[in-house]
Structure formats: C-alpha cells, structure tokens
C-alpha cells in the first residue's frame, strides 16, 4: 500500500487536472456548459462513463457526450468529485465557474434546453441532486458522500431548507422507489422541526406544499398516527352544564348512560388525551 502521504500527493496532483483541458481527451456537455475531462479519471470512477467512452456508439466515436436533462451545476460537482473525491455544495458562489476552462456555449446553441425541474437553489437541494446523479451514473462513493452532506446541511427550523428539500426530493428528483434514504431523511427533518418549523413556513405555504406533495404529507401522517397505541383509552366525560368531568374507560362509556354527579344534567361531551413517541433516525 502506498503511504497516506503518497496518496495525498496524488490527490493534489489530480486536483490540478480538474477543469483543465491539458491532455483532455473527452468532453462532457451539459446545458450550456462544456467540461473538458480526462477519460482515465472519469472511467475509473464510473462504469457508466467507461461504457460510454469505450462503446461504438456516437459518444465513443466523437469523444463527446451530451448529458441531457441534467443541471450543469450538479454535473460540475460530479466531475469535481471524480478528480478530488469531494465537491462544493454551495449554490451561490459558483465555484466551478470561477475556473477558467469550461466553456459556455452560446445561448440557444444547446438544442435541448428542456429541463423540467428547477436547478438546485440551496446546499440541501444540491446534495440531493448530486445523490441522484451518482445513482444514475453509478458512482457509489459519490452517492454516499452526497447523502452525508445532505444530512449535514439540514437546519430543521429553516423554512427554505425544509421546503426546498421536500420539493427536490419528493417532486423533482427521480429515484427508485426502494431508494428511500433521502426521503426518510427529509421526513424525519420535518418531524424534528416540529411546531417551530410549521410556524416558520406559515400556513399558506404549508397548505400549498401538502397539496402539491401529498406523498410527504402521507408519510408524515403515517409516522404521527403510528406513534399512538390503539385499543382501550381513558375517556374524560365533561358535564355540559357544570363542566365537571369524570374518567371512564371507552367500554364503560358505551354501556353506561352519563349522569353528572354534581348537577342533574345528563348531557356530556367526551374527550381523549393521547401521548405517543415518534422514532426519528439520527442524521444530524
């Protein structure tokens, strides 16, 4: 085994080739961006690119692949990972654009600007997108890293973060139904956010969110309702006249007629107080 020092040197050297067209032998096009890459880096990380580059399809012949239906910022992070084993998930600072060598295609020249989902607008969303991209192009280490970063970035009381994550994960990103790691994390975040989160989001946005993403609402409800036990409950019967109450079990309530012990009233209203526990996986 190489010493960790040697590995570190190699990493540093590899970093120099990121977005550097020196020795570049392959081009990845996405939206209006063109990334000059090196086949040996991208194929080493991804089986998909290996087949893409080596096959006798058009890409193999032209040494150029157009990744349609992807966000350039996400792809830039994916490439970044292939060279540096890490990526920057901030969406504001446009790190990849500061480097000099990726080319912006002239507007309109990209024939397929038919992305249906909005580009990631915060770190949480970015990590979710990178996660899905890693799945698609079979870069399993990146997928694990993206999930890690996704969990790190969650501020459960931040309305933008929570809404953004819900939309991205439940609505915009396609994954296998069985691939639930992002979904479980978002759902647990919402539960953890609690009253404060709901207050921060505000009723209007919340309603809109649940209407648009019934799946998230359904999952949250399932968790919540599931937290309470069923069967016999202790019931309080309030006298409608004097508000005096007594405790009964549910079966008693059904068999016996209510007669107030303080006043002659025979009318009562009933209520039940429920307490339960929700198990949330620790992700923070």
């Amino acid at each position, binding site marked *: 085994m190489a010493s960790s020092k040697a590995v570190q040197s190699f990493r540093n050297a590899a970093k120099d080739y990121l977005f550097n067209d020196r020795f570049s032998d392959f081009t990845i096009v996405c939206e209006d961006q063109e990334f000059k890459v090196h086949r040996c880096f991208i194929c080493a990380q991804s089986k*998909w690119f290996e087949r*893409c580059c080596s096959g006798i399809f*058009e890409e193999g012949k032209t040494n150029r692949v157009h990744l349609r239906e992807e966000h350039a910022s996400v792809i830039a992070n994916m490439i970044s990972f292939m060279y540096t084993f890490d990526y920057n998930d901030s969406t504001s600072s446009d790190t990849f654009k500061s480097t000099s060598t990726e080319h912006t295609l002239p507007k309109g020249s990209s024939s397929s600007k038919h992305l*249906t989902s909005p580009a990631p607008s915060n770190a949480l969303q970015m990590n979710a997108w990178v996660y899905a991209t890693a799945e698609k192009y079979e870069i399993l280490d990146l997928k694990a890293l993206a999930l890690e970063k996704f969990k790190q970035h969650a501020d459960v009381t931040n309305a933008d973060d929570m809404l*953004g994550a819900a939309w991205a994960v439940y609505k915009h990103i*396609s994954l*296998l139904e069985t691939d639930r790691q992002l979904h479980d994390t978002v759902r647990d975040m919402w539960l953890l956010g609690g009253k404060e989160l709901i207050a921060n989001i505000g009723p209007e946005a919340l309603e809109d*969110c649940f209407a648009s993403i019934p799946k998230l609402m359904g999952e949250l409800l399932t968790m919540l309702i599931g937290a309470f036990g069923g069967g016999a409950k202790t019931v309080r019967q309030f006298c409608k006249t004097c508000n005096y109450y007594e405790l009964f079990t549910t079966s008693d309530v059904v068999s016996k007629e209510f007669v107030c012990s303080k006043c002659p009233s025979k009318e009562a209203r009933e209520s039940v107080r429920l307490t339960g526990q929700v198990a949330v996986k620790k992700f923070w």
Partner: protein
Amino acid sequence: MANKFKGLNGADVDFETTWKVLETAFKEIHTKNASALSFEELYRNAYKIVLKKKGEELYNNVAQFEANWLSGEVRNRVVKQLTAPLLLLTDGTGRSLATSAERRVAGESFLRALKESWEDHQVCMGMLTDVLMYMDRVYCTDHRQPSIFAKAMGLFRDQILRSPVRPESPDLIEVLTSIVLDQIQMHRDGERINSHLIKSNVYMLEGLYESDQEVEDEKLYLRLFEPYFLQTSAMFYREEGERLLKESDAGTYCKEAKRRIEEESDRCRSTLSEATTVKIQRVVEDELIRHKIKGLIEMDSGVQYMVDNDKLYELGLVFELEARVDARKTELTKAIQKIINEMGTEINNVAINTSQAPPTAPAAQDEHGDDKQKPGSTRQINQQTVAALKWVEDVLALKTRFDNIWKTAFASDQTVHTALERSMGEIINAFSRGSEYISLFIDENMKKGIRDKTEAEIDATLEQAITTVRYLQDKDIFETYYKKHLCKRLLLKKSQSIDVEKQMISRMKIELGNSFTLKLEAMFKDMTLSEELTSGYRKHVAQLGDADPKRVDLSVNVLTSMTWPLEAFRGASEDEREGRSNIIFPASIERIKSGFEQFYSKKHSGRKLTWQTNMGDADVKAHFPRSKNGRPMTHDINCSTYAMLILLLFNSLPTTTSLTLEEIQARTNIPENDLKRNLQSLAVAPKTRFLVKEPMSREINAGDRFTYNEGFSSKIIKIKVGVVSAGNKVEGDRERKETEKKNNDSRGFAIEAAVVRIMKQRKSLPHAQLLTETITQLSTQFKPDVNMIKKKIESLIEREYLERIEDAAVPSYKYLA
C-alpha cells in the same frame, strides 16, 4: 415564497414511446448501424423505464425482440448453408452422398455462417448490455433474473441451436455436431481441414449452457458435443486398433498408437477444447492400449521377439504405451517376467543336465590312454565345476541383458525393476545349487580370474558376485560354502590377493550384515596371527643357538576351532578320526612338534593345540640315483604331511625293503583312507611314482606291497604331489548331503535361538504369530521351513523352555523363565 421551489414533476415516462425509441435503436445495432446512436440517450430512456418500475416489461420486451430477431433473420441465414448431404450426416447417410471434398467445403460454409452469427450476436448483445446496464443492475439483481446478456445467449441456444432445421428434422446442434465430427474424421484420414473454424464453433458451444443459470458442467459442449465425439472416436480407434493388430507388427503398432495419442492432444489444442484432452486420451488409450496391450505383447512380433532381437526402441515404445494406462505396467511386467523365467529355467536346466550327465568323455578318453592318472570321478567334478562357473556367468549375463533393457527401454522404472529383481531371485533360488555355485564362482575368480586384471575390472567382478549373492534366499548355505572355499584358499595359499579377499568380505558386510562376515573375518585374523606366530617361533629357534642345518623348518597355522570348516579337507565318508593324535611321527618331526607346543603354551597358557595332520603339506628334498638320465638327482617334492611321513618311513629303511599296506599303517597310524589316497599318489600316479607297488594296479588293496622306486626318473626338479584335492570343486552327492545335514542342524539352532529370543521378550504368544515373527527374524539368513519351526517348538516344549497355554482361544505358548 412557497412557489419558488415549484416545477414540473421529475421525469415522467410513457413506456410505449420510450420502448419504441429503444427498439428502433436495437434494430440499428443488429443491422450494424449503431455509430449514430447516442449511448446517453438510450441509457437515459432505459434508466427512466426502470425507475418507473417497468423493468420487467423492458426485460421481456428485449427478450422477445431478440427471440424474434434470432428466429427470423439469423436462423434463415444459417440454415440456408445446409446442403442435403450435410443434413443427412446425422443419420450417417450423408457420407455417401457427396465426396469428402464437397462435404468439407459445404460444411465449412455452414460453420462459417454459424460462427459469424454467433459472433454478431455477442457483439450486439454487448452493446445492448451497455445500454441496459441499469436494468441489469436493478431489475435482474432484485428479481434474480439472468442478465440480459445471459438471457440472450440462452435465446441463441433455443432459437438457433436447439430448434429443428426444418419440421421433423434433427436440431441444428445435431447437424453441427455431425458436421464437426465428419471434418475431424477427414482430418484423421489425412485431409486438411479448417481447424480454426471448428474451434470458433467449439468456443460457442463452450460459451453456452443448458439452462440460463449457466451451471459450469452444463455447457452445451460438454452435454451435446463431447459425448458424441468421444463415442465416435472410440469406435474409430477400436476398429483401427484391430486392423493394426492384424496388419502390422508390434513395433509399428506402438509407433502408430503413440502418433494417434499425440495427434488427438494436438487436435484438442488446435480444433476442439483443451478440456477434452484428458478424456480423448483416455478413449484412445482404452481402445489402442488398454484393450489391446495383452494381444500386442503376445503378438509374434511382440515382446518376446523384441527381447530376442534386442529391439530396445520398440520395447521402449511398449513400455511407454502401457505406462500411460497402467502405472504398474502389469502386462509388460508379466511378459518380461515370463521371458526371464524361461531363459533362467533354461540356464538352470543346462546346469542340472551337465551335473547329472554321466562322464562320457572321460570314459572315452581313458581308452585312448590320455590322462589316465585322473580318476573318472575327478574328471566329472571338473566338468561340473565348469558348469557351475558357466551357470553363474549365464545368470549374470541374463541380468546384465535385462538391466540394459530396463535402463534403455523401460526408463529405469521402479515397478518394473522390482519385478525384474523378483524374477531374477526366483530363478536363482529355483536352482538348488545356487549358493554353492556362486561361492565357487567367487573361488574361481579369487584363484585365477583376477590375475592380470585391473583394479576396476576386479571391482566389477566383485560387484557381479555380490549381485548374485544378493538374490540368494538361503544365505546361510552360501555362508557355509563360502567359508569352506575360503578356508581352502587360505590354507592352501591359493588366493591371488588377500587384499581382494578382504574387499569381498567388506562388500558382503555391507550387503549381508556384520553377523554374516564375523566368522569370515575371524579366519583372516587367524591367518595373520599364525604368520606372526610362525616368525616368532623361527626367531625363538634361532635364539636357541644350536643351528642345526638338518632341523626341519616349521610353519604353522593356528586355527580357532569352530571358525574353520575343517571338514572341507576330509573325505565325506570318513569318520571322525580318533587316531589322529596318535599319528606316529619320526623323531625329527616329533622334536619340532613338541618344540612348537612348548613355545605356544608359553605364549598362550591353557590352550590346547590339535594337530590337523591331514591338512598340512611338506617340502621334502629327495635323492634318486637314476633320475637324470640314469644319473643321480635331487628333487624338491611338495607333498602332504602324510605322504611325507610315508616317504620318511621308506627313507629310514634299506632301499629294497618292502612294506605292506598294513605294515605302513601300523608304523605311521595314518587313517586308512588317507593312507590309501596318499599311496595312490606315490605309487600309482606316473609322474610322482616314488614307490613301487605290487601288484601294479590302479586300486590300493589290502596286502599290496610297496618298495622305494630306485629307478624314479623325472626331468623336473620341483615335483608336486597332488593328493589333497587341491581345488574347490562341486560337491559330490555325499558331500552335499553332509553339507545339507550340517546346514539343517545350524538352521535348527538358529530357529531355536530365534524362538527363544522372541518368547523371552513376549512371554506369551499365539502359534501363528510366533511363526510369522520367527520367519521375519530369520529372513536375512534363510527362509525357514515351517515344519522345522514346528519341530523346534516341540523340542523346546520338551526341554521346558516353553509351555502350551491350555485354555487359550487359539493355540498359544508361554515362555518358562
């Protein structure tokens, strides 16, 4: 704010539309038109389908697409190449419908078409696999389906290979098999074929399996091709083997078999599969060797012929062939053993016949008056001695011959060696006089054979001698003879070199063990001590001062009793001579005898010397008045001690005095037989007739009279009187009986000693086990006779060394301390 994350749902897919895109692309791929297709697009479409849980539909659609393609496009292309003769090959009728050249060309186009279809199919499926990699990864893994590639290979098997060429006709793979077998047959018949093309098809069959689970031993090649190949090959080689046995000689057969085996291995490498190499070799070996080797060896031109004519190369081939099928080389070993036994038996028979043949030649020669002084019996013994030497030499020649065959032809194989050794041992031990003859052979070499030989040659001779000894089972008998012969060599100074004698002893020590040579070494020690003793005595006499010129010089060999087989000097029929010590010596002799006895008892008190007068010899100066043409002459006569006594007797008498046999015996006390023999030498043999006998006849009889032969005449100064049989000869029947008896006695002792040793250690032992252990213990010396062991056990019981255990389940003995 709420709307800012809104957008359309992620990839919504319509299966049918997406599939259409893929299907079109697949068609392009199959028609080799893929270079304009975008991998990214195809993958993305398939990926979306799988994400939307439509993996199964996609998988089935692809499979269906491939099935249609194969059964429609591909099958037609391949089947088109099948001509009628090719189709009919499966039931064997096709061979007669076309010449082999026609069949070969047609077969090759079919093989080529099939090969290309297969290769195309693999390339296309490789591309489809790339595009469908997400389906393989997710759907196939989760649902335990074979990968789409494996599925498509299975479809090729079902749609192309395992479907009938046309209704009611055999499956395509059967046609393929029969075409390949047909071509291989052409190749075996010496035609050139395109082996590369066949190999490609074999690759295909090796890459396909009976089921989509791709179980390793269910390869189509193993299931549907190889068995037929092996079967037809077996038939072919069975016939060829029978034909070859009929038509050619064994040598040719071997060469052909070897060539065929190598050819089949080559074929597996170049045309079929390496995996078949071992199996086809086994088939060829079965048909050409295993089932035929016996017949081959027994052919007129078989092993017997090869041995007789020294065909070492062919023998080597036979060996090599059988070694392939039988690590023990049973048949060859058997045959060789039989030959050795026959040749050995022949050698033994010659020796027996010679020894039993009546001495015809001497009788005839007697009439011619030649060599009259040699009695017929001596003549016969000489003849037998020659036969004995010849026997050993023949045996050694036989061994050398087969050793050479073994080394050159049989690759110095260990198993064969063991068998050869066993056979040699058998023939040597089958000959009852082996021990005696081998000892005689050594004797002869010690006396004459090693003269004028270099050290290396002597070494080789000794080695040969030891080689034969090694085979002997009854080493004790050999020891007896060797001692006897050595005894004579030493005492009569017949040995050429004491060094070589000692070398021989040390070889025997290595070969037969210390105990074997102990007594032999003791004999040498006695000889050395005697020399010292003699010279010591001479010095002693010289110191006495009175140098008497007439004093008789004495040289003595003091022999430890029991160590030396003194009976070697005795006539077999003679009794223990009681009278020996009473031999009457003349005063001059008596003086030195007692002188030495005194000298000896001073050195070694308490030891008793017994004079073996029958074994000594003497140098006598004799004066004959008319020996040299009527003039006096003094002769140096070497004769036995007894002859000396007789001569001294006559010397002390007036020349004309005569004595009868009885008188001589009375005055000397020489045992009658010895006396007769000595008188025979002195009065009958013409060259040493120092006495005159009356009446003049060959035999010495009671009442015969003897006188000094005044008229003795001889030109030779040194005369040797031969009485004591000078050389070692083959034993007469009487002697042999005595040797056997003695030997049986000593075996009896050895057995008793072994039994006691074993029982002392074990305390009690069942009968059978005691027998086994006794035999094992004694095996280095001889092979004990079971009856003798039983008798010895009986005897030990009688003498209360052992006792039967009464209530034992099996007969057992107990040791009595």
